């Protein structure tokens, strides 16, 4: 067994057998798949929760109040932020490999627990659901950077780009899987327990067994997490220099030089150049960083923030939009389980036709068109289509025009994924100096998480306050701002990391020596 495990890494590099690469893609991608399933499946069941627990009378079906809906949808993102900080600290302390088992077990337990949310009255069910969704997000927050780490560590040296792209695309499949599970479960329950429409019989339209539907859909999220755990346990510990794969070798060497004595002879010919090279040695909160990279960091963080406002609000609440314009039939014409089925079918169709193809277009073209162009084009078309929906809004609500609305709406998803959703992940890893790269990427990612929370909590309040048409206009403005801030981010296509971040070979060598001197170490010359 141990011998077989050890052979896997050798085969990964030699690239003799495709089976190993497929296995590595699945194992690395299962983390993203699980994250996407768990984060987005809640939007499929919130309507059903409203029908079951917020029955109000006989004129219209129950629905969640804005604050409750925002809480249920958004509490997982609060957990994601907290988990990312906690497991990031823990990973630094004891190595990331040792904590990924914990994040996955946390995800398994909380997926099952959220389906088993308990209590003898509806208030307790909703409260415990929020509680376990928070901890599910906590585990996801820990798992996301670990999935990215495993992705970089198991990437074959020769086909790294394609590998990372395939792994990233697993997110789209996670969303697809959520919709598929909801379709299957709701179809089965609809066939087993026929019920009249709400307007026919308000009480009987929600069968008691409907309570199982949302629980099964949520608990199913434990299955990919368990598979991820099982497969990762079968993989051996990483046996490659991740610093080389992630192009952080210079950073590692600089850190090591701070604790060593540096030979002065090797640097002798560069002593006179020290003054001109000092500009490269700056920390995160310095004027030099601000002048050289401040706008870049602002650009990457703000674009990620703005993207996630639009992206997560559209993803989590697209069913409300479809109901409002009439693409999903009016709630009173369906029973509870039928509503889940139609919502899941609509969302899965959008994912299948827009989200997933968008990822693959990015994969194919990102090195041809460049990151800047893709992000600019993505934000531009998202803006155009959002305004195209909002400005003639009355036209789309007329009978027979819903398909046009849905097509334009799905195109915003396509250009989100063939656009900023992918590039905001790639660019921060490329344009900053090695010394600060992970910090800047973390800042940008945190801004993205903050945008997700704004999107999750802000959307419903906005829609209830100013209506759907004006909400769409707000999202269009958000996309337009993203387009403007894209101009702050430089193009990194075809450039080495050193060229992009302004580091040259000689400068790094001089910087290494200077950092050693700054550390107060003895610079020793041998006689």
């Amino acid at each position, binding site marked *: 067994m141990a011998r077989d495990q*050890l052979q896997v890494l*050798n085969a990964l590099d030699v690239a003799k057998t495709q089976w190993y690469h497929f296995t590595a893609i699945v194992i690395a991608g299962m983390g993203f798949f699980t994250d996407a399933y768990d984060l987005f499946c809640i939007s499929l069941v919130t309507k059903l929760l409203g029908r079951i627990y917020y029955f109000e009378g006989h004129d219209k079906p129950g629905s969640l109040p804005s604050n409750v809906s925002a809480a249920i949808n958004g509490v997982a993102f609060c957990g994601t932020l907290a988990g990312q900080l906690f497991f990031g600290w823990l990973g630094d302390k004891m190595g990331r490999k040792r904590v990924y088992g914990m994040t996955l077990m946390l995800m398994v337990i909380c997926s099952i627990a959220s389906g088993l949310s308990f209590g003898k009255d509806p208030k307790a069910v909703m409260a415990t659901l*929020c*509680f376990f969704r*928070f901890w599910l997000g906590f585990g996801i927050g820990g798992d996301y950077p670990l999935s990215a780490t495993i992705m970089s560590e198991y990437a074959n040296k020769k086909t790294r780009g394609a590998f990372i792209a395939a792994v990233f695309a697993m997110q789209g499949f996670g969303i697809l899987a959520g919709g598929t599970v909801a379709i299957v479960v709701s179809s089965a329950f609809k066939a087993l327990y026929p019920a009249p429409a709400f307007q026919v019989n308000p009480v009987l*339209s929600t069968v008691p067994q409907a309570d199982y539907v949302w629980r099964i859909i949520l608990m199913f999220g434990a299955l990919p997490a368990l598979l991820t755990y099982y497969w990762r346990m079968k993989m051996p510990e990483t046996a490659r*220099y991740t610093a080389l794969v992630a192009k952080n070798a210079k950073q590692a060497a600089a850190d*090591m030089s701070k604790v060593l004595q540096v030979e002065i002879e090797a640097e002798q010919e560069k002593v006179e150049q020290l003054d001109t090279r000092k500009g490269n040695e700056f920390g995160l909160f310095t004027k030099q960083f601000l002048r050289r990279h401040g706008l870049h960091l602002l650009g990457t963080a703000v674009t990620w923030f703005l993207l996630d406002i639009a992206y997560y609000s559209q993803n989590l609440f697209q069913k409300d939009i479809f109901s409002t314009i009439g693409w999903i039939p009016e709630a009173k014409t369906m029973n509870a389980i039928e509503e889940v089925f139609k919502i899941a079918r609509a969302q899965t169709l959008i994912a299948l036709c827009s989200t997933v193809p968008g990822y693959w277009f990015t994969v194919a073209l990102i090195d041809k068109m460049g990151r800047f162009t893709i992000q600019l084009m993505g934000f531009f078309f998202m803006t155009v289509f959002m305004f195209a929906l909002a400005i003639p809004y009355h036209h789309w609500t007329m009978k027979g025009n819903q398909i046009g609305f849905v097509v334009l709406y799905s195109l915003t998803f396509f250009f989100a994924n063939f656009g900023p959703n992918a590039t905001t992940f790639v660019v921060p890893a490329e344009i900053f100096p090695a010394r600060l790269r992970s910090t800047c990427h973390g800042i940008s990612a945190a801004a993205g998480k903050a945008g997700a929370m704004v999107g999750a909590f802000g959307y419903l309040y906005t829609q209830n306050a100013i209506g759907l048409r004006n909400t769409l206009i707000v999202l269009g403005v958000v996309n337009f701002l993203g387009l403007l801030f894209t101009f702050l981010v430089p193009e990194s296509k075809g450039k080495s990391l050193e060229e992009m971040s302004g580091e040259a070979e000689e400068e790094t060598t001089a910087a290494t020596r200077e950092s050693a001197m700054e550390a107060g170490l003895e610079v020793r010359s041998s006689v």
Partner: protein
Amino acid sequence: MGNDAGSPQGPVTCGSWIRRPENLNLVVLGRSRRGNSCPSLLEIFSFDPKTTSLSTCPLTTYVLEAEEGDPVAIAVHPSGDDFVCALSNGSCKLFELYGRETNMKLLAKELAPLQGIGPQKCIAFSVDGSKFAAGGLDGHLRIMEWPSMRVILDEPRAHKSVRDMDFSLDSEFLASTSTDGSARIWKIEDGVPLTTLSRNSDEKIELCRFSMDGTKPFLFCSVQKGDTSVTAVYEISTWNKIGHKRLIRKSASVMSISHDGKYLSLGSKDGDICVVEVKKMQIYHYSKRLHLGTNIAYLEFCPGERVLLTTSVEWGALVTKLTVPKDWKEWQIYLVLLGLFLASAVAFYIFFENSDSFWNFPMGKDQPARPRFKPVLKDPQSYDDQNIWGPVDM
């Protein structure tokens, strides 16, 4: 378990840890012949982490024939199922471990490509177990695929005489040093020399170990400068020297890296050992004269425990518990997580008890489909019964 003067056993010449399933660690020791009454031996001992000691009796023993000579070096395959022993008669032998710890056996096999190749100073397996390398006293360097034994490199004049060698973490490079102080890097996939490490004329590179931490792509070398021994660090993407530091006070005779890459250990010719944390290159453990006045021949970190195995001709094999900061245990992390979980549970409960207005639940007795137990057992006709929505008298 040192040697007594009256002990009938021969001196320990080499040893190694053997990692077994279920976090079990064994130790293999090689003993040379002493006179005519004590033959050369290979012994397997079990290691008790609670008492940090080896078992008093070997689990199994293998007696080498007189014409086979003495064991010179041992390399254990990462799978823990077999090991190769270099013998003083100029051949290498493969030994396979059979059975559980209660009835363990050693089975010897011949390795045809390694017969009669001359005395080997160093033998080693790559980290993934797919390569095997042998460096001879005559300077002949061989790299082979394992277990097929296909020759990757066969260089008769690699060095004046091989002093030390090590595989890189990703099995891409082999570093080897010579008794004349030079060091070379070999590209394993192509079987060709890649570069020679730079050094000053008064420096002799003696020992080399690749980093085992994936985030630190370095090669650590023990360099003798006059009568001072320093540890130099080379970066493996450019093979430039980053810097050096003096860690051990006497000349270093042996070097080892822990399996997780956090610690580097040096043993000296006077019997000292020191353990250094790699991140800060700071000494965390120093034992003076652990092997009093004797050259330490072998030194290795235990897989999974902060324990060192050291051997010398005079004092035999010793296991030393290291005084380094304890790593977080798994259960401690789970305890922290559980604490956070319970704390947030309390916070949620307090919010729950004081948040009626937040949930906005409508009042009313006629709520449909409230959760109840065993709804499938209900009679369908009972839907019209008004009692279904209220408490049921059992």
